[in-house]
């Protein structure tokens, strides 16, 4: 019977709210917008965060990535036009790292260049990566067809290539990519495998891209040489870079930072002019998490303020409603309603108001991220947690901001209330 009375009370609350449809609706708006913005903002934040974390996670949190980077003082236009730039990581660096640090389990060297790929009449700009089989262990991309590079390919210096999904689709345009031949610059290679796309948008921290193809490192050196000529707008860029990238795998996460510091000290000794950069996914991960925390705090404050405003709006209207219904309250009291029953009535009304507002807010809050994903192509994730939180907050607003008006109603003197016009 008790629960049945609650149903009746809620019905009464709804009835009273329907009596002033526009007013109830306007009162609700504060909560609607508050709740919707909380959910939408959290969804966008969570989506961005997940994407960033996913990319960092794919690098593995127990690796250190070293990249060759042209030293700053050499990048004047005059020098770029006339001199060959010699900088960056060397083969020696790689073996030195592997042999010096006991915490380092593997190193994966890579040479990278931009080159045009051709197959029949089709052309495509490719990112050619010359590397070793270990690459495929450290960079997590599922194999769709064929196989990846194997130590035998290295020994034989075989002209074989592993393609990214989109390269296979656009350049070879065949159902079965493996076994097909394609030209990379002047050289002919045989496709042996296809990897799933790297996914998501590009970024500086990425190890791989959708335009990647992989060939054995030896083959890269033999066929394309050590000196790379890059044609950029206006100038020819001649570079001598032995290795563009070294991925260092560390035995355990807890050793990553200490090993990174050691590598940095060592490289600084051999490369006093710089010419390399170091990325530590673990550090990026921590940084991303810290950023997310800050983001959440800012978001929470904004949401809190908007919900507070919504709650004050509700309280305002409920106070007006109590004044307006003073006589009704007097009648109910005269008939025998106790104070707590009056409190209950008004509280339920406020909770119904804020909950309906919350519900509408949740629906809008779920739709907005979908629209964002569809039209702005940004990943969004609506978490169950944010929905539960939004529902809880709107109920709480009903209770907190409804209590004072309800108590005011209950504490009216019945005689005065009956006399009220």
């Amino acid at each position, binding site marked *: *019977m008790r629960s*049945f*009375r609650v149903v*009746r009370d809620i019905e009464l609350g709804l*009835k*009273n709210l329907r*009596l002033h449809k526009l007013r109830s609706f306007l009162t609700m708006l504060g909560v609607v917008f508050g709740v919707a913005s909380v959910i939408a903002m959290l969804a966008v934040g969570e989506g961005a965060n997940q994407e960033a974390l996913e990319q960092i996670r794919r690098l593995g949190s127990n690796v250190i990535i070293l990249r060759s980077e042209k030293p700053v003082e050499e990048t004047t236009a005059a020098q770029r036009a006339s001199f060959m730039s010699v900088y960056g990581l060397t083969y020696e660096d790689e073996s030195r790292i592997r042999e010096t640090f006991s915490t380092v389990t593997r190193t994966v060297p890579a040479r990278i260049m931009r080159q045009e790929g051709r197959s029949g009449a089709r052309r495509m700009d490719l990112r050619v990566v010359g590397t070793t089989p270990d690459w495929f262990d450290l960079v997590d991309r599922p194999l769709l067809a064929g196989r990846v590079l194997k130590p035998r390919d290295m020994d034989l210096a075989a002209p074989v290539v592993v393609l990214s999904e989109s390269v296979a689709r656009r350049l070879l345009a065949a159902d079965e990519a493996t076994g097909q031949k394609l030209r990379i610059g002047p050289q002919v290679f045989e496709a042996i495998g296809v990897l799933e796309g790297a996914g998501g948008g590009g970024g500086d921290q990425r190890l791989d891209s959708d335009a990647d193809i992989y060939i054995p490192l030896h083959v890269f050196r033999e066929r394309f040489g050590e000196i790379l000529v890059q044609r950029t707008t206006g100038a020819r860029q001649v570079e001598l870079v032995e290795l563009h990238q070294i991925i260092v795998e560390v035995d355990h996460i807890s050793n990553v930072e200490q090993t990174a510091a050691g590598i940095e000290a060592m490289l600084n000794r051999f490369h006093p002019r710089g010419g390399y950069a170091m990325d530590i996914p673990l550090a990026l991960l921590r940084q991303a998490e810290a950023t997310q925390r800050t983001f959440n705090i800012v978001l929470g404050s904004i949401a809190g303020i908007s919900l507070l405003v919504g709650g004050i709006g509700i309280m305002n209207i409920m106070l007006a409603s109590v004044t307006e219904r003073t*006589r*009704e309250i*007097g*009648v*109910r*009291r*005269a*008939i*025998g*309603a*106790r*104070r707590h*029953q009056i409190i209950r009535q008004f509280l339920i009304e406020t909770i119904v108001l804020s909950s309906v507002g919350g519900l509408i807010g949740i629906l809008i809050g779920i739709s907005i991220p979908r629209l964002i994903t569809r039209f702005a192509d940004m990943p969004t994730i609506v978490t169950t947690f944010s929905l539960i939180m939004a529902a809880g907050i709107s109920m709480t607003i009903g209770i907190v901001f409804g209590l004072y008006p309800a108590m005011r109603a209950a504490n009216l003197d*019945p*005689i005065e209330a*009956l006399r009220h016009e």
Partner: protein
Amino acid sequence: MSSKPSPVIHLEDVHRTYVMGRESVHALAGVTLSFFAGDFWAIMGASGSGKSTLLNLLGCLDRPSSGQYLFEDEDVGSKDDDGLSELRLRRIGFIFQSFHLIPQLSVRENIELPLYYQGLPAQESARQAEALAERVGLQDRLSHRPTELSGGQQQRVAIARALANQPRVLLADEPTGNLDSQTSAQIMEFLAELNQQGVTIVMVTHEDDIAEYAHARLHMRDGLVDRLEQGHA
């Protein structure tokens, strides 16, 4: 007046004093009276004589400042707010000059209100509401809103609501004050009929022809019982 062993309502030297700023207003200045089951009283007096204060007190909407008020031998003065509510809920029925129906509720829901607060199951309370509506001749108006009814019909709904808890006493505050003379007569005849069926009625009025319907009159003056007139009708 038939003398029964114990009265429904007994007031003994009851004072009600309002403090307004530095002044005290003695709305009731020592009232002693007894109302018995089956009585039909008219309380009369000029405005400011204390008749409204007396009715509010009798209706347990208020407590005496001093003196004793016994409702069926229970001391009203010692009860807290919930205790007074309980008395009103179970044993007192109110009707008012301006009907005081709740506009957003239907006739049925208005009549059901006391039953709702008594915690009656919905089915039972609906059944009783229908019987009550029939008793006041409004069984075909159950789903109407009060505003869709005439003044006389509204007062009938209010009477049905007041009877819902089978009150020991029905308190009426100028029940015909907002009605034309013809409707007033109908309502008063209905109240007289209820009284004949055994309902105890205490009514405040300032109109002589309305007071005619009561069996006894109590005249108030300056917060005191001025005189009693017994044995009309």
